[in-house]
Every structure is written in C-alpha cells, then in structure tokens.
C-alpha cells in the first residue's frame, strides 16, 4: 500500500496550488466561500464564478478525468480529487454539475455525435448547468417524478409541468432534465434524460429563497418547452439508468469538505490569535477537545474519500462506499459548521454585514447553508439505505 502521490500528481497539485493561490487574491472583497449556491446568490460572485469557469475551461481543468480522445486530460479520480480539493480550499468557484453530472451521462451513454456536440461545450466552461430533477412530490423518491412530462411532437419533445429545488436555474445556460415520457411504464422505465439550453421559449424560473434569504433554489415551469430529440442521452424512457451511471462520482463531495476544512483552519488561526472569551486556547480544554475532534474527523474522512476515489479510479462499482463518503462528508460539514458557530459564541450568529462579524460570517452562512448538504443529492437516510442494501446486502423488506 502506498499513500504517496506520484511525482506527476505532486507536480499537478503544485500547479493547482499556485494557480488557485493566485486566483484567491483576485476574489471579490469580503469573499468567504465558493460554494456554488453562493455564486448563484450574488451577482458579484456569479461574475467571479463565470470568469474562473472559463479560465478553467481554457486550462482543460474541467475535463481532467475524461479520456484524452474525447477532449479530456486522461487523468483519474485521484487527480480530479486533488484538483477539487485545492480549488475548494482556496475558495475558488468555477465548477458546477456540468463537468461531472452532464458529462458523465454523455461519456457513459452518449452517441459519438452527442460527445462531439456536448463535451467541448462543457469542457470549455462556456456553458453552465443546473439539474432539473426534483419535483414537488418527488424528492428522495426521485424515480417517482410525474410532474414534468415530455411528449414527442415531430422531431421535438414538448415538455410541460414543473421542477422544484432547481439550484441555479436562474443563472445557468443549460439544464439536465429528467421528464416522465411514458406514464404507463413502471416508474424507473418511463423517464427520459435530456440535455438542453434554457434560452428557449416555454420555460419560467421562479425563485425560492433559502432560510438565510439566499436565492439559489428555483421552481422551473415548462409550458411548450421544446427539446430536439437528438438531445436525449441514452434511449427515450431509459433516463433513470443514464442518471445512475453518473451518480457515484457526484457523491464524493471532496470540494465541499475542502471548503469546510478551510473554514475550520481559519477558525483555528482565529482562536490561536484571539483566544476564546478572553482566555487563551491553552486554558480551555473543552474547546481544544472539540476542535481536536473536528480535526480528527476531517482527516479520517479525507483518507476515506481518497480511498474510495482510488477504488473508482479502477472502475470498481462501490455504491456502499460512495454513499458513505457522501454521508460522512455532509454530516461532517454540518457538524463542523455547528462547532464553529458555537465556539464563536455570541459572535457566531452575526451576519457578514455586521461590523462585529467574525471570519466574515462564514460559520453563520455555513451552518444554515450546509443543512442542505445532508438532503441534496440523496439524504443521509437514503445513503444509509444504500449502504445497507447495496453495501451490506441487507434485505429490503
């Protein structure tokens, strides 16, 4: 067993490190998070996100793990993780579901023509992607969607109905859309997977505010929205399986935890410098131990995430492991954000706009924002079900 990076990986890490360190200096004033939600929530952040996205596209860093012959860099999941970790640690945005989710569908199930059409667009960073998945009655049970339907009309599918919780729909140029195209088939077998631009008539995006008032979620309504039939990835009515083929990758979530790591490191520096309640950290064992426990869990999660990425690099299908990375990482984010808020005491809940805010209100934001992490992309409970059913092969009934 060998945990060291190869010289090539080290060099790559170094390259990322230098670039993102530099970019961090260019971030807007008061910048404290690169979470993609935050980029959707604020105009200035969105602009920075787009600038970076295009730069990443030019550098070929949006397609690191894609095969070279398809315009990628031919790296593995480990290199992708290093990239995401360094990027997120430096709080640099520029990454959305396009290069991972949309690309996975195309790479796994796309025709040659679709690959030629979509992959360069995604890799360039010129397109931005949101996920048209959840519906009012279909959250955890995503395969039950019925609110968004598609009917073939000539060479186009005509989409009607509604999506909800569509993160970034008000900003993004493209959407990955799941629609019910055969209402008579069993639920997993009547869904079609579309990639489509959003600047087309027949779509309306309405904001949903987060509890902290941020506008990242949307309802999306379709009425006569047309998608050419060549935009179906995989076969019509086989969309569920296209989605599943790309799922394991999204669940790693290293970039999210790397941001949490950054928040945590800044908290540690803050406590070292300013103490706690007027006492030095040496005096406050209880706080020391809480911080140590966060450190422990962050390190342990990280080793696990790299291990699971290494399994995935070798093409192993490890749904239990993948789910556990997502579950542990997202719970850890919530846990660290709460510890951070608590350790900042009375200062913790102050918003960034307050002159007395600490660490730019990063924990005030995180401890609300991150509640979504244990819900989106499969709740903690769904992940545990997957571990139990697929990882441990426990009976479903």
């Amino acid at each position, binding site marked *: 067993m060998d945990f060291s990076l190869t010289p090539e990986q080290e060099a790559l890490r170094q390259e990322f490190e230098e670039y993102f360190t530099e970019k961090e200096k260019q971030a807007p004033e008061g910048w404290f998070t690169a979470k993609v939600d935050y980029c959707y929530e604020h105009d200035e952040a969105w602009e920075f996100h787009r600038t970076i996205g295009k730069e990443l596209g030019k550098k070929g860093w949006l397609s690191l793990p894609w095969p070279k012959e398809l315009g990628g860099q031919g790296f593995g999941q480990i290199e992708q993780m290093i990239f995401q970790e360094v990027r997120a640690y430096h709080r640099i945005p520029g990454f959305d579901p396009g290069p991972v989710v949309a690309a996975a569908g195309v790479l796994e199930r796309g025709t040659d023509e679709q690959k030629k059409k979509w992959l360069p667009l995604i890799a360039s960073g010129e397109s931005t992607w949101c996920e048209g998945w959840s519906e009012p009655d279909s959250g*955890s049970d995503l395969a*039950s969607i019925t609110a968004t339907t598609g009917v073939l009309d000539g060479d186009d599918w005509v989409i009607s109905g509604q999506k909800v919780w569509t993160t970034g729909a008000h900003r993004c140029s493209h959407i990955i859309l799941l629609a019910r195209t055969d209402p008579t088939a069993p639920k997993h077998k009547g869904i079609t997977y579309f990639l489509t631009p959003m600047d087309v008539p027949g779509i309306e995006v309405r904001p949903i505010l*987060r*509890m*902290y008032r941020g506008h990242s979620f949307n309802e999306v309504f379709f009425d006569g929205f047309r998608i050419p039939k060549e935009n179906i990835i995989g076969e019509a009515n086989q969309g569920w399986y296209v989605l599943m083929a790309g799922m394991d990758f999204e669940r790693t979530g290293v970039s999210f935890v790397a941001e949490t790591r950054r928040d945590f490191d800044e908290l540690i520096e803050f406590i070292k410098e300013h103490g706690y309640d007027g006492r030095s950290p040496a005096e406050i064992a209880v706080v020391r131990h809480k911080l140590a426990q966060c450190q422990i869990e962050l390190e342990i999660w990280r080793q696990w995430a790299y291990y699971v990425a290494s399994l995935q690099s070798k093409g192993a299908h490890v749904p239990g492991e993948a789910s556990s990375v997502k579950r542990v990482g997202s719970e850890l984010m919530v846990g660290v954000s*709460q510890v951070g808020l608590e350790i900042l005491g009375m200062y*913790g809940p102050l918003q960034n706009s307050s002159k007395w805010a600490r660490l730019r209100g990063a924990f005030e934001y995180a401890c609300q924002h991150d509640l979504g992490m244990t819900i989106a992309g499969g709740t903690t*409970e769904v992940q545990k079900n997957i571990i139990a059913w697929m990882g441990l092969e426990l009976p479903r009934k």
Partner: protein
Amino acid sequence: MNLDFTEDEELIRSISRDFLEKEFPKELVKQLEDDPKGYSPEVWNKMAGLGWMGLMIPEEYGGFDGSFMQLVILLEEMGRACTTGPFFSTTLGTLAILDAGSQEQKADLLPKIAQGELILALALTEPIARYDAAGVTIEAKSEGDDYILNGTKLFVHDAQAADYLLCTVRTDSSSAPENGISFFMADTKSAGISITPLTTMSYDHQNEVVFENVRVPKANMLGELNQGWPVVEKLLEKAAVAKCAEMNGGADWVVATSVDYAKERIQYGKPIGSYQAIQHYLADMWTNAELSKRITYYAAWKIDQRLPCTMEASIIKTWVSDTYNHTSRMGVQIHGALGTTRDHDMGLYYQRARQAWPLFGDPDFHREKVAQEMGL
C-alpha cells in the same frame, strides 16, 4: 406533589396561544426582521392590554403579581409562535427592578412598564462576550450626582426600542471582579449613547451600544454601589430559565410540525412517517422536548418557592440548548429541501435555536457551573 397545571396556568396558556395565533402570524414575524424598531407597537399595546408586561409586577404597581411558572408558560407560547420584540428584555429587566430597585424606582417605573409604556433592554455583555463578572469592563466614574460611563456593550437585544438600558458597569477596578460591579439604568436618549444594530442569523435585534462620556444620574443605580453582581447573577439564572421556556415552545412547534409533515409527505408510496428512521428521529425529538419542559417547570417552581436553583438553571440551559438545536436541525432534515427554505417556517426555529445557544451562557458555560455546583 401535583404536576398538573393549575386552572390559572391553563388559562394563561390558552389565552396566550389564541392571542398569538391570531395577532402574531409568521408574516408579522418575518416583517419585523427588517423593522428598525423590531416590534409592532400595535401588538405590543394589545399585549399590554392583556396584562403581560405587568405579569410579574405586584398589584400595588398595577400588575398581576403572577408567578414565574406563569411567565414560563407565557414564554413557551411566545417561543411556539416565534414572536419577536422586547417583551423578554423588558420582563427580565422588570425582575431586576423588583429584586434590587428602591421604593422610588419601583413606584416610578413599574406602573409604566405594566402599562406597556416603558421598554427595557439588558446591556450585560461586552466585546469580551462572557457572562461572568470578569466580563464587565465598561467604566463608570463618579462625578457629582452622576456617573460617567465609557465603553462598549455588545449583543444588546432591543436597545433600538428601549427607553432604558439595564447596564452592568465597573465602579471599582481594584477589588475582585465580582465586587466592583454596579448596575445602572441608562436612559437611551442620554447624550453620548450610540446604538448600532447588528444583523444576526435570526434578526433578533441585537445592538452595539457605545457609551462616550454618558452621564447617568446616581439615582438610576439599581441596588448598592459595587453590589451589582449578585443582582445580575440572580437575573442571569432567571433569564436562562426564561430563555429555556421560549426554546421549549419552539421545540414543541418543531416536533408537532414535523410529526404532521411525516404523516402527510409521501415518498416511495407511503408517508415518510412510516419509515422507522423517521419514526425514531421523531420519538427522540419528542422525548427530549418533553423532558425539557418538565425540568423547566421544576426550575420555575423552585424560583417561585425561592429555593436555590443555580444547579437547575444550568442543567436546563445545557439540556434545552442541545435539545432545541438538535430538534430543529432534524426538523429541517425531515422536511427535506423545503425545510431549508424561507417558504417554510422551520428555518425560523432553527435560526432561533442557534441564536439562543450562547445566550445567558452556552452549554459549556453551564456544564462548568454544574460541575462547580457538584463540588468538582
């Protein structure tokens, strides 16, 4: 031993619940978040009309001479309704005046408070952000009939609305921290006071209050010179219990709302409340919230009996803070994405739970107090 509510207690609960449901809808709660005053004078006056500001005030001053248990019940309902406004600050300030005020001060202030004409704020904490005696550093110097105050109070709830700030100041720096503190009522209109709002997670109208050569008449001292700390300590205990009552009401709402949602929300063809994971979450949430209420009533009873309740106040502030925080977090989780939005009210409760965590001492502060009370 009779652990039922008395008829009076039941009455307070039902009246206040009805009133708040009608007069304090969530639209008002959200609207007040950005209101510079932080409260609705109209509703405030109705509350005064119901006698709420006079609840703890003796009849001779126009109040109702109520019990702390009654206050706990009322605050529980306020927590359930997620109200905002200076009721908490004013009532806790009233308790301090009752405890330490002179006859003149009582005769002057209490009737006005009972009428809803006077709003108080507690200015106890400073940038050092701790609730012990060493946390009071703002300096007051005697000059003639006045004291001159200089320094900064931070995290002062409702200062923007208050007529008086009940303010701990250091009047003697040479002795032990707890022996040099005096307790003043500073008129917010005094020259040299500047009040700057702080925006918090729950928009609970905290403020920075800077004192720059502020003159406070000696007549405005609550209790004796340098003897302020014991008054504040007692006040902090009651404030912790009162805050717990508020949190308990919130936790109750969270549990009830989550149970209802779990019965209605269908996923995979059945209500999510039929899944054992959700059932066990809710069973734990309900249990912890029920435990919270019982121990809070016990503390309230001790206060009413004038029995020492330092240990109990710390026990409940620890337990209830943990419970409300965890319960509201799980309330969000059970509601899924909906729970994370402003379209649903669950977030309001989660924000309040997080906000209440450090108030009047966080769980670590109170665990330490419990350890001390245990003789450790």
